[in-house]
């Protein structure tokens, strides 16, 4: 009887530890092989079919149905250029030049990784929608306050940004840490 209880304890504790490790390191943890460019992070393993068992599981959780690196490179961040957590009660300026790709977009997602509800349906800015100055630079505002153009809407709470590069220049896949991506600067908080 005593031995049976011990075996049961081993099975229960082992199962909890095993599942806990999966949750901590694979489901909630960051993917192996990540690359950083300013505040932006990417992982060229997203969309690939290679990798070990753990990488495959990470890709399935964090990049489900994503395309491979020649088709699309996905950068994301939950931090601004100063390293502070992105906060929906603040206003941010995302500024830069067109990243080297056939088409690009920057989209804001709530902490649950779905689009942020807003009546104006302003979820993203993209190569086709932003305005540029004479030097070819764009300045987009990410805030709860409404703007008529170059604006991504926020709500209270943490959020994250995803930068998609469709058919990126070969230089991005070759050196994703130096792709000259837009900066993210906090302007104010309410």
């Amino acid at each position, binding site marked *: 009887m005593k031995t049976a209880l011990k075996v049961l304890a081993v099975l229960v*504790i082992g*199962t909890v530890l095993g599942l806990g490790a*999966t949750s901590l390191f694979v489901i909630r943890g960051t993917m192996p092989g990540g690359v950083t460019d300013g505040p932006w992070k990417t992982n060229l393993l997203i969309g690939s079919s290679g990798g070990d068992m753990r990488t495959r599981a990470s890709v399935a959780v964090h990049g489900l149905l994503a395309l491979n690196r020649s*088709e699309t490179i996905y950068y994301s961040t939950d931090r601004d250029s100063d390293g502070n957590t992105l906060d929906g009660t603040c206003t941010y300026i995302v500024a830069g030049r067109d990243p080297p790709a056939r088409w690009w977009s920057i989209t804001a*997602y709530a902490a649950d990784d*779905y689009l942020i509800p807003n009546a104006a349906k302003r*979820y*993203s800015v993209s190569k086709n929608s932003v305005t540029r100055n004479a030097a070819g630079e764009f300045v987009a505002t990410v805030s709860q306050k409404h703007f008529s153009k170059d604006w991504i809407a926020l709500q209270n709470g943490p959020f994250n940004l995803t930068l998609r590069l469709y058919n990126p220049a070969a230089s991005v896949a070759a050196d994703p840490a130096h792709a000259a991506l837009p900066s993210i600067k906090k302007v104010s908080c309410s």
Partner: protein
Amino acid sequence: MSAREWTGWIAATIVVAVAVHLASVWILPHAVMHRALSKMGAVNTIHHQKRVDEHARGVVRPSPDLLYSVCPFDLSNGSLEVKAPVPPGTYWSVSAFDNNTNNFFALNDRQIGGQPLELIILPPRKGTEPMHIAGRLVIRAPTVRGLVLFRTLVNDDKQFAKIDTVRRQASCAIAK
């Protein structure tokens, strides 16, 4: 309980933990794909999803600038025949994923060169290399179940109706 006994029980616990961890990591991609496919509707039929907004909660991080059309497939009863016109003047791609979430095929509007897509996906066997048979692109799926996904970029809201009409002409069905 002696120190030796303790060591034995702790070792057994670690073995169980490692086994459960490895098993759960192995099964995770299958489980994630199964969950995604179950939300997409009937197999071997194309489903044109509405324009993405905050109510789109099937797959994480959807792009609001893309129109998605999906065809969950089950090749138990034969090959899948996929046909689609390519909308002019915008980014378009078709990709295929196996039951383990692997992206085993992708083709975009530039690569296809303006021709309509005629794609046959064969049930799994050895080799997944694309080949052309009688003008059609033929690929072999690594698993019986999986997903074909079309992405069409709405690069100009004024063009939405036109782009939407073209992408809705896509079809997928088991080949007769």
